[in-house]
């Protein structure tokens, strides 16, 4: 399918105008791929046809958002990241009487439960609040329910163990038919809420912000904007955890952060 660059831009502009969702600063190659994916699945042949449909039909637009903003995740994704959190960050978090964590772009929530488990094992969950946000309401709903397909649990369990988890992972969920449901005690201190990194502002101050494999979808301009937002939302010496392939290297604020774990992309706000 051939769609012109200018036409994609026009479509994203009209979506912003109509719905307030701003995808204009997303990295184009992947947005284009997602758009083509959506059009193929819906048998929509031309971009102007797609534009007409989603600008008029809010339901279809929600579907569109779901497809455009999909990210695939797993529990304890990149186990070494979680091991580093256990070893380098948890002790410092423990010095705060009340711990606030923001998981930005939490998708379907697998990593939110991973963090809740980490906190629980460190004895910190009771005095923590995790704010889990995403642009995609549908993902957020799945995250809130905490119900996942049982076939993924083998991978999740392996990840958990590789991350340094010493408990029996199956104690954290109940399996029923082909799904598992995570323990309610993990959910008690999680607040799920919609937040759009491209347009929304800071809403609190945190000791730890985790935003993994979200900024890779943004262009440099939006990446800078979001890193600034995180900077503003971190307390002094607060931590920022990014995805495996993300860095502050090209960011305008790189000097205000120090590397805590270079390989695992964990940073600390220093000034």
């Amino acid at each position, binding site marked *: 399918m051939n769609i012109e660059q200018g036409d994609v831009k026009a479509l994203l502009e009209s979506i912003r105008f109509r719905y307030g969702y701003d995808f204009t600063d997303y*990295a184009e190659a*992947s947005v284009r*791929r997602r758009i083509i994916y959506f059009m193929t699945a819906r048998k929509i042949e031309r971009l102007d046809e797609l534009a007409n449909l989603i600008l008029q039909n809010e339901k279809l637009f929600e579907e569109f958002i779901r497809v455009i903003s999909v990210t*695939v995740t797993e529990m304890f994704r990149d186990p070494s990241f979680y091991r580093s959190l256990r070893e380098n960050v948890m002790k410092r978090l423990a010095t705060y009487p009340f711990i606030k964590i923001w998981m930005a772009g939490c998708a379907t929530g697998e990593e939110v439960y991973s963090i809740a488990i980490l906190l629980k094992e460190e004895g910190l969950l009771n005095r923590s609040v995790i704010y889990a946000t995403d642009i995609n309401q549908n993902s957020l709903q799945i995250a809130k329910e905490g119900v996942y397909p049982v076939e993924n649990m083998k991978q999740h369990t392996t990840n958990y163990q590789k991350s340094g988890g010493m408990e029996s992972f199956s104690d954290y969920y109940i399996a029923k038919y082909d799904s598992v449901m995570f323990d309610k005690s993990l959910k008690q201190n999680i607040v799920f809420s919609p937040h759009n990194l491209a347009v929304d502002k800071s809403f609190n101050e945190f000791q730890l912000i985790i935003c993994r494999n979200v900024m*890779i979808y943004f262009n440099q301009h939006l990446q800078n904007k979001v890193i600034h937002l995180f900077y503003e939302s971190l307390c002094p010496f607060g931590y920022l955890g990014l995805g495996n392939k993300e860095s502050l290297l090209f960011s305008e604020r790189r000097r205000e952060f120090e590397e805590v774990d270079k390989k695992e992309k964990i940073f600390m706000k220093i000034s």
Partner: protein
Amino acid sequence: MRYEVIVIGASAGGLTAIGYLLEHLPADFTIPIIVVQHRSKDPKDLLEELLQSKSKIKVKQADEKEKIQPGVVYIAPPDYHLLIERDRTFSLTSDEPVRFSRPSIDVLFESAAEVYRNKSVGIILTGANNDGVAGLAAIIREDGIAIVQNPEEAEIQVMPLASLAANKIHHIFTLDQLRAFLVKLNKSSNG
């Protein structure tokens, strides 16, 4: 004709094939080469190091937002799709696997075709699945060059055969023929 990018896709058996190819390309080879080799998620695999030990051309893992430079072989990182933006920088995504693969050959090839149009060269080497079929089709649609490793030589024939069955491939080469062709292409692209 000036060619500006070479994309290579390989799966099972690819390490040997790509290693052989890189070992025999000259140090002054300038057209950027971008490789998707299906690999495990394990960050400890040494694909880049192994290939660099054979190659006279610089080999590195493609970084997010990195500018594509001449004279470099870029390898797609494990567990991400690799795409090319119009400003000739890399994007990574963690979208769902395509044909069970992440990185996916199709995803890289389609974005290379979109950006480089008829200045792209796509090459499918050994492998045990049909990733690359759609990617090569995109390159052919844009009038780039589509090449498949001679299945008789390939360690695993499935991937070359799948691409041959689905597309009108321009060349079927052994690795030695491919090397000779690329060297010539590089010369004419710089001439």
